[in-house]
Every structure is written in C-alpha cells, then in structure tokens.
C-alpha cells in the first residue's frame, strides 16, 4: 500500500476507527504516515486545549414556560421528521399527483369513444349474461358476433354487427330469432338468421337499451368502450389466471419440431367442467384433442402457463397460447390426422380451421355440437 492510499486511514485511526490490516501495516512501517498521524494527533490536542481556554457561556435557568409553544400540525410534524430530502418528497408528491391524474385519464378513456366496443346482453329467460367485443376501427374480423342460447323455454339465436358510430353512440345491426320448441343445436343455427331482417339499434355507452324479440320478449343491451382488444373476446374483464375446472385458449400456435403447424386467431373457454378439454382442427392435420383428464390412447403432456409440451409419433410438439390454459400441470393428448370436421359437426367445412374448449365427453361424441 502507498502513502496516498493509507493517508485517509491515518485520519480514521486518529479517530479510533478500525482500519484495514494492510493500511495498519503500512502506517506502522512508514515514516511519512507516522508523521501525519502525529501531526493529526497534535492538532487535535492543541485544538482541545485552545477550546478549554475559551470562556464558556454562563447559562441561567430559563423561564421557558413563558415562551409560547407552537402546537405543530401533522404537516409540520411530518416535515420536520422527514427522512428524505424535501425536494425528493416534493418530486414524489408531484409524481403521485401526475400518476393519479393519469389514472383518471385512463378511466375516462374507457368511457369515451375508444377503438373497441363491448356489448353486454342479458337474456331474461334464465338471467344469462353474454358479451360481444367489436372493433370500431374497421377490422372486419372482429366487428360482429353471434350467440345461441337454449333452455326449457326454447332457443334464441342472435347476431350483432357493428355498423358505425355518431359521437359516442354506436349503431348496431341486430338479428334475432326465437324458437319455442327444443331442437338439436349446431352451426346451422346462425344460418337460420339469413332470412331475418336486420334491426338497427343505437347504444349509448352506460345506458340500457331494450330490443324486442317476437314471441320471446325483451333483451337488455348495454355497452362500453375499451381502449384495447381483450384477449378473451367474450370475457373482456377476465383475469389472466385460469379458474378451477377451466380450459381456455387464445391465439394458439402449434410447433412440431421446428415446423409451425398452425397459427390461429380467436379464443375459446370451457368453465366449471372437471373434464375440460380442447379440440383443434386444422385442414390437412386433422384433429388434436387435449384434455385435463386422461382418456383412451392419449399421451401425457406437460403444462407450463401458456405452453403445452407433448411427444406424439416420435416428434416433439409445443403448443403456445396467448394466456395460461389451465391450472392443471398435465394434459393428455391425441392426434387423429384422418379426422374430417364435416363428418362430425353440422355445417362445418374441412378446409377451415376451428378450435373449441368443451367437455371431453362431448368432444368424444360422434356428433359434436358447436353451441352447447
């Protein structure tokens, strides 16, 4: 160690502070450092001697009780005990105000015309609530939705289409059809609306609107704007974590080895089902069935949030999804390359990809219903 490195430790040593071994050794052997130590010591001694010579103030008992004492308020108390610099505190306050102001803006943004409109419809017959997400910016893929609801009371088919907006009011084209008797369900349900005239409905965000369905009654509609396209179009307020007994999938991509088998849009979800499963059909690939419970001829796969890994026919597969699929850590998978969708689902086409989350037992049936 050199003197210039040790000199600061000479000062510390003078104050009775501990110093590194290297510095202590150097100071012990170095004339210059010892001279410095002696000088520091002598200066301190001399200063204390001089201070002792100085006349000390005679203090008398003060009449402190006569001095008016301030009653500090919480702000004064806080500012005097503040442990961070005042400037930092002021900056922090400013930042909080700025951010909270931003939150207000974000909240407000959902109430004003945004790029996405979420329509909520309530079916009075069974209290069911459905949601439809529509992009208002001209994206035709996500500007309409359809739904079919059945029960002891009959069957209701609906289709809602975004047409335009005026200020914040949204113009929708709505088709509905009610059938009083029970009937088998399938994709052709939507087709039954072809001949139904489209009714124009104006929705004010935050206000309720009723539409009348002949023979059925009123359906309540409400709507609100969102500033983004939700991952699950039918459940815009859904949390990222899957619920118990739930299988969900959004924008799946299947990779086999280094090859991308398919890359699809859309989402599907099956809730409250202890045997929730997923079916994916892709032209030329046939059908993949992925279940949270074991089933015949299925191989076991591993789940890691939005990834499902499995091996089939000697090849490694990786199914990637835009969100966690299930709480289960394992799934069971089969692949049927000969599967023809049109043979199992009414109205389906073999040249169109399709995926859906449903109960395993329903997906294993010979005839699969699209709406259940």
């Amino acid at each position, binding site marked *: 160690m050199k003197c210039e490195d040790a*000199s*600061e430790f*000479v*000062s*510390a040593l*003078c*104050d009775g*502070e501990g110093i590194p071994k290297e510095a202590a050794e150097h100071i012990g052997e170095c004339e210059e450092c010892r001279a*410095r130590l002696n*000088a*520091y010591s002598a*200066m*301190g001694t*001399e*200063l*204390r*001697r*001089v*201070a002792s*010579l*100085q006349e*000390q*103030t005679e*203090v008398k*008992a*003060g*009449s*402190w*009780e006569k*001095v*008016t*004492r*301030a009653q*500090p308020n919480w702000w*004064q*108390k806080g500012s*005097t*005990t503040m442990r961070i610099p005042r400037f930092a505190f002021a900056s922090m306050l400013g930042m909080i105000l700025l951010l909270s102001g931003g939150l207000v803006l974000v909240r407000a943004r959902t109430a004003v015309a945004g790029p996405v409109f979420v329509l909520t419809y309530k079916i009075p017959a069974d209290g069911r609530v459905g949601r439809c997400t529509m992009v208002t910016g001209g994206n035709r893929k996500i500007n309409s939705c359809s739904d079919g609801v059945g029960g002891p009371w009959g069957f209701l088919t609906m289709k809602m289409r975004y047409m335009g907006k005026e200020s914040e009011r949204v113009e929708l084209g709505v088709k509905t059809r009610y059938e009083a008797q029970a009937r088998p369900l399938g994709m052709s349900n939507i087709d039954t609306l072809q001949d139904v005239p489209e009714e124009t409905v104006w929705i004010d965000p935050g206000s309720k609107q009723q539409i009348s369905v002949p023979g059925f009654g009123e359906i309540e509609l409400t709507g609100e704007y969102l500033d983004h396209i939700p991952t699950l179009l039918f459940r815009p307020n859904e949390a990222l974590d899957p619920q118990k007994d739930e299988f969900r999938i959004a924008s799946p991509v299947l990779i086999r080895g280094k090859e991308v088998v398919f890359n699809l849009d859309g989402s599907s979800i099956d809730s409250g089902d202890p045997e929730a499963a997923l079916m994916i059909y892709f032209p030329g690939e046939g059908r993949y069935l992925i279940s949270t419970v074991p089933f015949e001829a299925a191989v076991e796969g591993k789940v890691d949030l939005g990834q499902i890994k499995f091996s089939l026919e000697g090849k490694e597969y990786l199914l990637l999804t835009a969100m966690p699929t299930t709480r289960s850590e394992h799934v069971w998978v089969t692949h049927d390359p000969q599967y023809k969708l049109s043979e199992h689902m009414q109205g389906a086409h073999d040249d169109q990809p399709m995926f859906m989350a449903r109960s395993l037992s329903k997906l294993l049936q010979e005839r699969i219903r699209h709406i259940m």
Partner: protein
Amino acid sequence: MPDDRDLWERIGRGDAFAFDALYRAHAPKVELFLRQSLRSRQAAEDVMQETFAQIWKSPNGFEPSRGTLRAYLFGAARKRAAEWWRKQGAARNREVENGPAESKAEIASLVGNVFAHLPEEQRTLIWLREVEGQSYAELAMILEIPVGTVRSRLFAAREALRSVWHAAPKAKKEDA
C-alpha cells in the same frame, strides 16, 4: 440525567424543567461550537438562543432511534449557523478573507489561528470531532451526510489544517 428518550418525551409534554436541564447541559458547548463556526461571539450567542428557543417552541424534530439528542442539538445549531451565514451574504466573504478581529483575539494559538483560515465546513467538522468528540455516526446525523463521507471529509479537513499549519510560521513572519 434521564436518557434522551425520556427527556425528549417530557419536553414534548411541555415540561420546562426538563428543557432547562437540557439547555444547561448543552447550551455552553453549542455556543462554543457556534463561535468557531460564525466567528462572532454575539452571533454565536444569538444563534444558540434561537436554536434552543425554536426547539422548545416546536419539539418535534428529534427521533431517538436515529441518534443522540446531543447530535440533534448540534445539527440544529449547524443549520441555524448556515442560515445565519446565508443572511450575511457579501459580509461573509469579507470576513473569510480578513478574519474577524474578535476570533483572532480569542483563539490565541498557532493551531487556533490556522484553524480560523479553514473553510466553515471544515472548521465545523474538525471542531465537532476533535473538541466535541462526536462519533462518525453523530457527525453523519449532524451534517446529514453518509458515514463514509464523514471519514473522507475529515481526512480532507485535517490535511487542509496540516498544510496551513506547516506554512503558518512563514506567514507569521511575513505579517510581522
């Protein structure tokens, strides 16, 4: 003498006797410290009185968990002294160059004279360490700087004092 926490609690409750005990114990040392810092006996007395009066009026700045009451008092006095210097403005510069006569008369020794030539911050640091015996932790609290910085600044202050001290005899001859 009660411990800092008890004493402070009593002062907080408006116990004038407790505060008087605090004043008697520390006011002389605080005033001495201010004398070397402000280099004016009258100013030191005024600032010391202001410091204690302010603490009595609003006893809410001390937290026993952060340090000793003595360190808090010196810290409060140092802040008042800094405020006093700010108010002095141009007068300060003049005094630093020439040195006020009364301090020269009072600090009648070689080291005392060279000490008076150090910048105010270095004088404060050395005084509190050498004369008041404040620990590094107390100095850190008083000066509101990290302990590591206390060590390096103390070294710088001592080196400054040593270099002026070594040069002092020559300067004294030139003055004569």
